[in-house]
C-alpha cells in the first residue's frame, strides 16, 4: 500500500525551517540584509536597499563589493541548498536538528568572477544562481542580479566551489 502524501503545511514548514537555519546562521548575510524567497526548490535572493551598501554617494550607486558579496552569497546558498534539499527530501537529515552551530559543512569558494554590467541603483536587488556542474569535489555556479527589470541584469558572476566532503 502507498503511504498517503504528507500534509502540505508539514512539507512547507520543514523546507522553510531548513532554509531559515541555513541562511540565518551566517552573520555576514544578516549584515547585508539578504533574504531568500522560496518556490519549491527555486530560490530568489533579495537585498533591500540600505545606505550602508552605497559605494559612490555622488550617483548614488551600490558598492561593487556589496554587489559581488550579494552574488557570492546567492551562489553559495544555492549550492548548499541543493545539498540540503537532497538530504532532507530523502529523509537522511532531520531539519529539526539544524541550527546555526550545527549546519552541514558549507562549500568553499575557489574563485569568483563578477561582471559589472551597469551601476547598481539605490533600489532593492534580486538574484538567482544556477548550478551548471555539481561533482563530488567541485561545482560551477552562475549567478545573475537585477533590480527593476529582470531582463536588464546589473551584474553577473561565475564561481567555482570546493564541495564539502565527508572528510571535511
Amino acid at each position, binding site marked *: 500500500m502507498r503511504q498517503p502524501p504528507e500534509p502540505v503545511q508539514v512539507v512547507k514548514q520543514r523546507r522553510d525551517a531548513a532554509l531559515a537555519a541555513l541562511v540565518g*546562521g*551566517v*552573520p*555576514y*548575510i*544578516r*549584515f*547585508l540584509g539578504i533574504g531568500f524567497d522560496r518556490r519549491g526548490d527555486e530560490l530568489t535572493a533579495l537585498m533591500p536597499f540600505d*545606505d*550602508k*551598501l*552605497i*559605494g*559612490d*554617494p*555622488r550617483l548614488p550607486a*551600490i*558598492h*561593487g*563589493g*556589496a554587489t*559581488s*558579496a*550579494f552574488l*557570492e*552569497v546567492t551562489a553559495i546558498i544555492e549550492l548548499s541548498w541543493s545539498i540540503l534539499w537532497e538530504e532532507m527530501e530523502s529523509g537522511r537529515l532531520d531539519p529539526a536538528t539544524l541550527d*546555526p*552551530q550545527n*549546519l552541514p*559543512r*558549507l562549500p*568553499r*569558494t*575557489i*574563485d*569568483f*568572477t*563578477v*561582471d*559589472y554590467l551597469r*551601476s547598481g541603483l539605490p533600489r532593492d536587488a534580486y538574484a538567482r544562481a544556477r548550478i551548471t556542474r555539481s561533482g563530488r569535489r567541485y561545482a560551477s555556479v552562475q549567478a545573475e542580479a537585477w533590480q527593476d527589470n529582470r531582463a536588464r541584469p546589473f551584474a553577473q558572476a561565475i564561481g567555482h566551489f570546493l564541495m564539502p566532503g565527508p572528510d571535511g
Partner: protein
Amino acid sequence: MSTETTSDPGAFIAALPHARALGMRLDRLEPGTAEISMGYAPELVGDPATGVIHGGAVSALMDTCCGAAVMSLPEAAGTATIDLRIDYMRPATPGQRVRAEAQCYHVTRHVVFVRATARDDDAARPVATATGAFTIERAAHR
C-alpha cells in the same frame, strides 16, 4: 569617488559608505598603488562554525583597494569596476586584520588593469589574489 579624496587618505574611505560600514582603513596611497585593510569583526563572519570571514567581505576589500589604486593615478577623475576575479587561496585566520595591496599594472586611455593581494598576519601565504579591469574617467584639464 572624486579626485579630492586622493589628497586626504581619511576622507577617501569616509566618502564610501559601504567601505566605512565594513571598517576599512586606507593605509597607503601612491600613484598606481593602494593599501587598504579591514579589521576582523563578528558581523563579517561567513562560516559560523569556524568564525572565518565571508569571501564577500574579502571581495569588497579587494574591489575598494583596486578602485583606490586607479583613483591614485594623477589623471583619474573617476572609475568603475568592469570585472573582478578573486582567487581564494585559504581562509583568513579569525581575529586577524586583512590587508590588501593593489597595483595598476597597465593603463590605457579607457581601461586600467589592476592586480591585488590580500594577506593576514602570515604575510608569506596570501589569503586571496584578485585581477580586474576598471574604467578610467580622465580629468578634462590636466
